[in-house]
């Protein structure tokens, strides 16, 4: 590495100081020039920063105002109106959410469509928001009172049915409404414009 590369020597530094002083003297003799575009932009940015700082101060003031305990006066009628408004919003939101979940991905059938011989077939339906689920099908003469499902956990409804070997069409009644095409693994037309799920129970009888 050369000495120049390391930095100026003491003699060079003296010369540099003299040159800088000369340049400053010359610059002071020049007339003032308008701010360049670059300088103007820098000023704008600085101004914006100042303004943001001012806003931040306003926000801090608002937070401080909100955090400060204060007395609120409401008439009984006002309290009632407020409670009614909150309850209405809750009901509307709850109803909308409930409908969305019922027709969405959480509505699912999981039973095996081919049951084992001489075993109960488990029918499972995921309907977290349902209040009542009933199984109807060939095995109970489509009687909507014969085979209610029990809640299992937070989302599923189940029932175990001992079925003879054979082919059965079935569907679910959820909160009094019969589902067409309940999402079972096998489906078939019901001849009435809708669809049924199908389960085949194994055994020698088929």
């Amino acid at each position, binding site marked *: 590495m050369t000495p120049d590369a390391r930095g100026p020597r003491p003699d060079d530094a003296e010369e540099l100081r003299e040159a800088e002083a000369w340049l400053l003297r010359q610059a002071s003799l020049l007339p003032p020039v308008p701010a360049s575009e670059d300088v103007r932009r820098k000023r704008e940015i600085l101004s914006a920063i100042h303004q943001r700082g001012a806003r931040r101060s306003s926000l801090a003031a608002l937070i401080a105002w909100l955090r400060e305990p204060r007395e609120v006066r409401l008439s009984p009628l006002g309290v009632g109106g407020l409670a009614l408004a909150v309850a209405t919003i809750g009901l509307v939101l709850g109803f909308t959410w409930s409908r969305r979940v019922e027709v969405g991905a959480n509505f699912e059938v999981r039973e095996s469509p081919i049951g084992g011989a001489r075993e109960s077939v488990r029918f499972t339906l995921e309907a977290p928001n349902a209040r009542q689920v009933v199984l109807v099908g060939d095995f109970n003469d*489509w*009687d909507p009172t014969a085979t209610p499902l029990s809640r299992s956990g937070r989302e599923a409804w189940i029932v175990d049915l001992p079925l003879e070997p054979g082919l059965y069409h079935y569907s679910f009644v959820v909160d009094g409404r019969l589902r067409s095409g309940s999402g079972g693994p096998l489906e078939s037309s019901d001849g009435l414009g809708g669809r049924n799920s199908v389960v085949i129970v194994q055994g020698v009888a088929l």
Partner: protein
Amino acid sequence: MIPRRTLGIAALSLLLVLSGAEAWGSAADLDARLAKRLDPPLLTEVRAIVASAQAESLPEEPLVLRSLEGAAKGASPPQILEALRVLLGHLRVARAALGQDAAVDALRAGADALAAGVDSTTVAGFAPGAASRATVVGLVVLSDLVTRGVPAPLAAHGLRAMIAAGTAELEFLDLRSAVERDIAKGTAPSRAMEKRIESMMRDLPLERR
């Protein structure tokens, strides 16, 4: 001593009486199930359709179940009667296609396939094993695949090949699920079916292909 011939006639008569009583009991049971749930005017017409199935030795149970299903679903009497007439027609065609020895469930599965739009010739392709469980599963899966857009002849060809190869029943369901997944991903139904059948047959031992 009672002559042997007389004994034989008496035994035969008893058998006929017993079988007649059983048939009558069965018919009475069917009728009671219908009467419990159908209005009298509808019941009369449903009885007539069930009787015509009985006269043709077609299974009555699917018709009884369809009428009870219609009532449970709140279908109107004309809708229920139309559904029964269509089902009776399909059971007739299914028996002609699958043969006299076809199991009741095979006839029902055949009728479902016809309702899904499968033609009688394609259903008849399942006749050789119409008394077997695999045929019932095959026909049910056929109906399902056809409703998902798989061409019936292609689906039937693949399923018959699986039946002939002695494929386990659960594998029919695996095939159906795989085809459904492929269709959901955007594969054309016919291509999905071809691909899955090829894959399934390739995995079979040589002696079963």
